[in-house]
């Protein structure tokens, strides 16, 4: 009898702790959702219960966000910046990762670590000179400055990620291709790239999410509303003077969060083995 009680007590405390963690992590997102669906009189009444609707839910904030603000423009900006950065990153990181894994031996190892360490150089150390460089290139206050600057952290990250993947790939595949008459370059294009599509997909997804998450460079380089990417636009542009448009801000934050959240959940394990350099197998 006593054992049954202690057992059920243990179960209850276990699930209680799990529930606590879920509430801790999910509440801000629930709060975004409920705020974005509440009407303004409901939102700004301190006596109302904040956790649920006191008046009928409304899509008014979403309508305003899409029709009266630059939100769709920001979405488009983020998409363009993300795609361009993905293209630049793949063009540089794919051959670099392969070369460092297969062609350059011990010096490649050191070079790979060196490239990866640049991923740790923070934006807050580089934003001053980079903002001058961006101005010299005539890109100040333009989203194209982000296309130039974002690869500084996505290339190191993806090179490292792809390098780990290429190292784990059997050498025999390329050797067979070369024996069959492929050149070294041909083996890379015809055999290695098609076989590493899962890794390339991971690199694409993480490059894209890294560009969505970035805030510091965007804040530094871009001040005109129409050029902002979505993260910056939602966080800084939905304020008029002292008035925060909380319903619209939360709606925008929620919309921008969803794709990143899904991507992370699908590719999390690859991400972890990527940044820990394949220490975990």
């Amino acid at each position: 009898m006593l054992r049954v009680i202690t057992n059920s007590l243990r179960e209850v405390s276990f699930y209680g702790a799990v529930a606590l963690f879920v509430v801790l992590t999910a509440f801000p997102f629930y709060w975004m959702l409920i705020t974005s669906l509440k009407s303004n009189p409901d939102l700004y009444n301190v006596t109302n219960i904040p956790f649920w609707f006191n008046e009928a839910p409304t899509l008014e904030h979403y309508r305003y966000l899409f029709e009266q603000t630059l939100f769709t423009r920001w979405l488009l900006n983020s998409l363009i910046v993300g795609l361009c950065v993905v293209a630049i990153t793949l063009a540089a990181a794919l051959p670099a990762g392969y070369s460092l894994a297969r062609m350059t031996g011990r010096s490649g190892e050191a070079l790979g670590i060196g490239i990866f360490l640049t991923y740790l150089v923070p934006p807050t150390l580089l934003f001053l000179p980079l903002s001058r460089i961006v101005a010299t290139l005539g890109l100040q206050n333009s989203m194209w400055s982000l296309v130039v600057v974002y690869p500084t952290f996505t290339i190191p990250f993806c090179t490292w990620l792809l390098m780990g993947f290429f190292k784990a790939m059997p050498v025999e595949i390329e050797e067979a291709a070369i024996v069959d008459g492929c050149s070294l370059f041909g083996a890379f294009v015809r055999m290695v790239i098609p076989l590493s599509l899962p890794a390339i997909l991971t690199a694409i997804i993480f490059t894209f999410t890294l560009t969505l998450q970035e805030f510091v460079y965007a804040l530094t380089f871009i001040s005109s509303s129409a050029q902002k990417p979505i993260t910056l636009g939602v966080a800084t542009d939905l304020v008029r003077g002292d008035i925060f448009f909380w319903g619209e801000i939360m709606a925008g934050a929620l919309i921008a969060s969803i794709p990143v959240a899904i991507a992370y959940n699908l590719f999390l394990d690859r991400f972890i083995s990527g940044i820990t350099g394949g220490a975990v197998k």
Partner: protein
Amino acid sequence: MVDIAEPVATRQPSRFRFILDRREVLGGLFVAPAILYVLLLVGAPFLLAVYYSISAYTIYDPSWRFVGLSNFRQIIQNPVFLGTLGNTFLFTFASQLLGLILGKFGALLLLRPFPGRKIVRAVIILPWAVPIALASVAWEWMFDSLYSVINWTMIALGIIDRSEAPNWLGNPHLAMLCVIVVNAWRFFPFAIVVFLAGITSVPQDVIDAATVDGAGFWRRNYQIILPMIMPIVAVGLIFGIVFTFTDLSIVYLLTNGGPINATSVLGFQGFQVGIVSGDVSHGAAISLFMLPVLFFVVIGMLRFIRRREI
């Protein structure tokens, strides 16, 4: 096979082709774009930042006049900067410690199979996945001086009275607590994932052997598993420290450094001085104070990588 090989054999192999087939040449060509990009847009700006910090460069007077270490001297004598430096260390270590504790605890929970574990894991990863700028805005709304849901709950539960409801972001100590909590909230899912990856990589027979030898729960956890997963936890911690120590987005969005510089951190002050006020040289000098910490972190990282290879 033959019809693939033949066209190659009949064509006169060009010298270009011959060079490309040499492993080290093609290897060099392959890695060159990445190295060049990093040298041009990380290496060069870094040197430029160092030069700014010892010059008198502002956006109004872009002169390259060399002034030696006087920028650093002026900064160190500024009490606001010393406060900022202290804030940065407090912000980093408090939030990393809180994040690690929450992470270890969460990993212990998620290690045990239970129905819905996959969904719980998906939810718990959210704070780390979602852009921190957007999550910060949600927290700002939760800490609102008038409509704070936290205050509402405490008033409803009878813990405090409406008249004594705290102004989270308006009080210097509470504001610091808020940015620390938000940063810990952002990083602990990462810590959970790192702990989980480490623990599941410990071979089961090691744990079984320890159990047979009479090791209990705590002993298994802290004398067997923890030392074995230390390297991977160290990498996670290094990431956490670097990205927290140099962060500015949480502080910028939640408190804007205030009230009265109480939550100002290095990255934020570098931004305020260098970008907002346009005093590039002093801003660069402030940012460069991050270097010693980054230096130690890089050494730690290199040591870890070397140990992994042995």
